[in-house]
């Protein structure tokens, strides 16, 4: 099965030192999976995507917050276990990539814990 490049979703991860990494992922995978598949530093995802550890915490760029939506109750609860939580905080395992998120920009926190 071939995936045409044009169907891939581009995401920019910005590290705490402001360095940027642009990765491509297939729609349908989560933002956390896209980070792990592309070895993005700072996304630990200790629980493997079960929304159970809060070590895949990211800050969604303001321009993208409407499209990524707000955390569900379970995710909001789990964010209590993250550090330096902001209004833009999300757990990347709970953001499913769609073609609408092509171009998404997120920041990786200084530390996941």
């Amino acid at each position, binding site marked *: 099965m071939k995936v045409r490049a044009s169907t891939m979703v581009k995401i920019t991860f910005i590290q705490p030192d402001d360095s940027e990494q642009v990765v491509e992922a297939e729609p349908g995978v989560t933002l956390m999976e896209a980070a792990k598949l592309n070895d993005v530093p700072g996304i630990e995802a*200790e629980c493997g995507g*079960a929304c*159970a*550890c809060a070590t895949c915490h990211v800050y969604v760029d303001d321009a993208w917050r409407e499209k990524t939506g707000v955390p569900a109750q379970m995710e909001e*609860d789990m964010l*209590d*276990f*993250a*550090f330096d939580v902001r209004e833009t905080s999300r757990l990347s395992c709970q953001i499913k990539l769609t073609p609408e998120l092509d171009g998404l920009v997120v920041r990786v926190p200084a530390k996941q*814990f």
Partner: protein
Amino acid sequence: MSTDASPAAAAAPIETDAVIIGAGPVGLFAVFELGLVDIKAHVIDILDKPGGQCAELYPEKPIYDIPALPTVTGQELTDRLLEQIKPFGAEFHLGERVDVLQRLPDGRFNLKTDAGTEFNTKVVVIAAGGGSFTPKRPPLAGIEAFEGTSVLYSVRRMEALRDKRVLIVGGGDSALDWTLALQPVAKSITLLHRRDEFRAAPNSVQKMRQLVETGDVRLMIGQVTSLDGTGNQLEGATVKTKEGEERIGVDAMLPFFGLTMKLGPVAEWGLALNENLIPVDTEKFETSEQGIFAVGDINTYPGKLKLILSGFHEVALMAQQAHKYVYPGKKLMFQYTTSSSNLQKKLGVS
């Protein structure tokens, strides 16, 4: 609630054939496979309940890749395994971390836990998954200096906090329980949480709200941004709230941000390691030390998949080799539980 640890008992070491480190699904099934070949095991786990990650991280979440169970939650899987291994009478030592593992002059192994329990055993099975669950440390500059004296992740003695100004951080049951328990003891309690919503038992939340109402507990909505103090004594915490930053004077801080997995003391046992995993062969799942096995998520070998399913397979083969060490010279006949009256007797079904 106070977990006054009994002083390191001078009791004689427990003499046994096998010690399993880790009570996750793979550690539990190791009890079964060892039991079938007449090896009785003691099981040690740092958590206060069996199940490992299944019980701690995803008790309510379904697992879909356990053979013959189309869907099962982490807790159900744990409960079923506990039922399955019941006939073998393994003894559990929960809430204990194995700190020391060393070989004895007679070839066996000596293990010591942080609670002072000691074992002498013929074989050791490390089924420690991602390592030991340890409290998350808030990434605040200089926090290490205060840990153990004025930054505490668990309270061993409430008296140590008498007449102290205590800052409790978090919004779950631990944070709320300690707020309520320490309020009569401490000089002052500040409960700090990032939002004005709590995941704790409604009853505790209600009690906390009452104490806030009467001015006996100060509730702050915000996050700690820095700590200050002298030596190992915390003196203040700077808290960022919606209104801005405020420094509050505190003598102790109790952060409750859940648990994370750290390899922990396993790294100090002299075993060959590869990126925090223990390399094993795929015939016996034995480590670089004869008689010490590693199974489940903590091991690595070509083609390793971190699946519960793989761990189950690994313990079955491990038990064959363990039998050679525990019963040297005794031939082990391969048998099926379906047809062997001998195995069925052990399982208590015949």
